[in-house]
């Protein structure tokens, strides 16, 4: 079974091949989602300290764990992108989150690691084109642009329960990314039938950053959480080639990736309900290193809030009370399109199911989202996401 899980883990390293047209811009679209539980209640989780269904949003909260915890989170999405009189429907599945936490001292100190996809750059376009010639004639064909790649993090850190009201966390994040853009110009004119152009530009990013987190529980019903990921430099290995041409450009340079701050709160409303909210700011406006991206980037912020009826178990093993969640997310993306910001709005609901003997939960969340609008951005995307995650707990696995 461990081998099966390992094989699955390796497979998730492949990037998803769907997306929406805004993934063509700058650093692409934010696809970080966490567990389906978090997604269903709008995305908040910084102040969460649940040990039955840990969200992994705040590494400081992991110090409370008594059991080894595994989180696998993914989602399926059906969307339609449209604009300028054309539309395209996409269906995809995506597995952006795999996390593991291992208690080193029961309820006090936890080591955690994982894999978290943060941004996706996947999209492709194809349009018929005619290239004009000096003699006034035209050569017909089509132009296809394929953009693919992602940014992801591999965190490795500790969560420490310092006191009853204070927990701290710190992690080292390996930041990796690939951005590959292939422009193909294919001549379909039977009078010409020339060799197609293929311009391929590939960037491989590699860097390290650190994240510090805190979880405060000063009063019983109220929890506060915050984290800060440092801005950092990353190596960029860039290769530019043109199909058929013997020479190519190779270069190594540095890009400056932005810091990211998150903060949230959670308020328990009795035994059954809780509300919460998070805010996140990634200062993409400080990104440097790729001039074409610099022209488009801007600070990205996210506001999320929601409500949750908590999962409760009946005494004496008489079943449980199912959780219910609802939330709302508003994200202003880290890039501009047509000189206007791109807003993403998500409305979510969801529930969850405990595994046998309280060894974790299966959570589901259903979201409707809108991204961009034709009036400001020229393009928009609408669609549904079905998030699914499994949080598994195991005692004394090692």
């Amino acid at each position, binding site marked *: *079974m461990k081998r099966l899980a390992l*094989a699955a883990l390796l497979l998730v390293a492949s990037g998803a091949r*769907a997306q929406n047209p805004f993934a063509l811009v700058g650093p692409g679209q934010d696809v970080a989602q966490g567990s389906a539980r978090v997604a269903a209640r709008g995305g908040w989780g910084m102040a969460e300290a649940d040990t039955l269904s840990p969200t992994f949003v705040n590494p400081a909260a992991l110090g409370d764990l008594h059991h080894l915890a595994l989180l*696998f989170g993914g989602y399926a999405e059906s969307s339609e992108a449209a604009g300028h009189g054309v539309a395209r429907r996409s269906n995809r599945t995506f597995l952006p989150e795999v996390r593991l936490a291992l208690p080193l001292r029961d309820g006090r100190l936890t080591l955690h690691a994982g894999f978290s996809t943060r941004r996706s750059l996947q999209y492709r376009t194809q349009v018929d084109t005619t290239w004009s*010639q000096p003699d006034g004639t035209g050569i017909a064909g089509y132009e296809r642009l394929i953009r693919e790649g992602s940014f992801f993090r591999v965190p490795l850190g500790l969560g420490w329960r310092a006191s009853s009201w204070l927990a701290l966390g710190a992690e080292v994040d390996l930041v990796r990314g690939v951005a590959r853009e292939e422009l193909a110009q294919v001549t379909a004119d039977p009078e010409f039938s020339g060799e197609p152009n293929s311009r391929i530009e590939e960037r491989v990013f590699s860097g390290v950053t650190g994240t510090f987190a805190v979880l405060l529980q000063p009063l019983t019903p109220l929890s506060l959480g915050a984290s800060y990921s440092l801005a950092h430099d990353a190596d960029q290995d860039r290769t530019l080639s043109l199909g058929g041409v013997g020479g190519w450009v190779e270069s190594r340079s540095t890009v400056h990736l932005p810091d990211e701050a998150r903060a949230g709160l959670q308020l328990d409303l009795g035994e059954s309900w809780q509300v919460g909210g998070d805010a996140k700011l990634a200062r993409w406006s400080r990104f440097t290193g790729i001039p074409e991206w610099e022209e488009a980037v801007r600070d990205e912020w996210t506001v999320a809030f929601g409500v949750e009826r908590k999962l409760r178990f009946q005494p004496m093993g008489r079943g449980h009370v199912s959780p219910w969640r609802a939330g709302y997310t508003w994200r202003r993306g880290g890039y501009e399109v047509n000189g206007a910001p791109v807003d993403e709005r998500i409305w979510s609901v969801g529930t969850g199911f405990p595994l046998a003997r309280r060894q974790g939960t299966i959570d589901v969340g259903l979201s409707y989202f809108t991204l961009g609008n034709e009036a400001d951005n020229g393009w928009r995307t609408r669609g549904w996401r079905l998030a699914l995650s499994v949080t*598994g707990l195991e005692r004394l696995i090692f």
Partner: protein
Amino acid sequence: MKRLPGLAPLAALTLALALGEGCTSDDPNGVGTGLSPVGMDSVLVPVTLTNLSHYGALNVTNTQVPLDEREVLYLGSDGNDASSIVVTYDFSTLPNAEWTEDLLAAGNIINVRLRMYLLTWYNRNHGANTDTTNLPNRYWPGARKIYRVFRLAAPVDTLSFPGAEPAFAGVSVDSFVATRYEDLYPKNDLIEIPIYVDKAAEWLAERGRISFLIREEVDPIVGTDPGLLGFASKEMVHGGSTLADIYAGNSIGPTLLINTTRVPDIAGVPDPDLVIRPVADVSTWHALEEPPATPATGILFRTHMRSYPVLGFDLSDTDLVPRNVRINRAELTLVTDTTRVSGPAQVLVASEIEPDVVPPGVAVVALADLEPATFVVGGRSGLNPEDAASDIIAINVTSSVQRFLNGAYAGSRVFLLTEGESFFTGWRANPSPDFWFRRRWFYGTDDADPAHRPRLKIVYSRESELDEVRP
């Protein structure tokens, strides 16, 4: 082993998600167009090069198939090219058990003919005699011919050709005049020249080897048409594809047929002719236009007596063709001088070759030395001289020009134009270029009409960021 109930559903779900990861969607379309700044600096830029940096003309010899072993004998003239036929018979084998001395006596001979087998391509409509609606109107070798046969003073060494016609006496053995082929031979494929009987009796009596010269002549009184025709030689093996009939039972090649009053008793053959087959035959090619030393006035492409042109273009001018560009299309274009074409349809194969192998000007090279020196780029087949669509020949050399610019070779390369030689897999080589005499002149670099000049047309695309990188 400890049971791990929590991991089992986790692993199964994860594997299912991972295997299912991916997407289905509508085909890519214009959604999102313009959002990415990715583009190329220039696309499909046309450039035409007309100045040849290298010109050569290769007269190619083929020791594997010397001239006297070719399957076709050429007779007549076309433009500045002319050939007669030298044929040798061995009369020393007569008399024999069937044709005894009394049967070979002059008084027993009724008539003597020299029969030649014309390749059907040279007939009207190239052998399609039943169809008279589509007479060939270009490169028709003419309908009226005079062929004369001369006895030569001594047997001729066929290895002396191509070369001057051997000296012959001023009076022919006999002459043959055809006003129109179809008047005499409905099938047009047998040419029979009457031979004086008394002369034939003398040859039989001499009982030795005798060579004859068969030549085309011009008779202004009759009004004959000069033209180059091909006949089967004694080495003919492609008769099925080029002759109306293989004529089993006869030798293929110029043949003497002697008809007699009294005949030998040969089982199953009533009234047989004495058939005397040649022991040697060869085309003289006493006139053969040399390829020009420069490409100014024209470029010659010829088979049978191979002459292959070599063309090179200067790609070093980066103002015309920058480095590190994508060659979308490159065409080597030659325009045919339609007044100087001869023979059936051609194949034209362009190959890369080192300039050192093909020095400037006219050179002689062995066919066997070409094979290891060439790399096929592309070509055209079915270049029918009677089809106007074949007059302008453009060969796709895109990959080759891309290689030149990529610096794939230590030195430069130029283009060699050949027929479909046997070592060029994929290009017609049967019959080999030794078979047909095909000739095509292309207009030269100094032709008054720029549209006639040989040229290399290139269409490229460019990413200028690549300009400063290797090679």
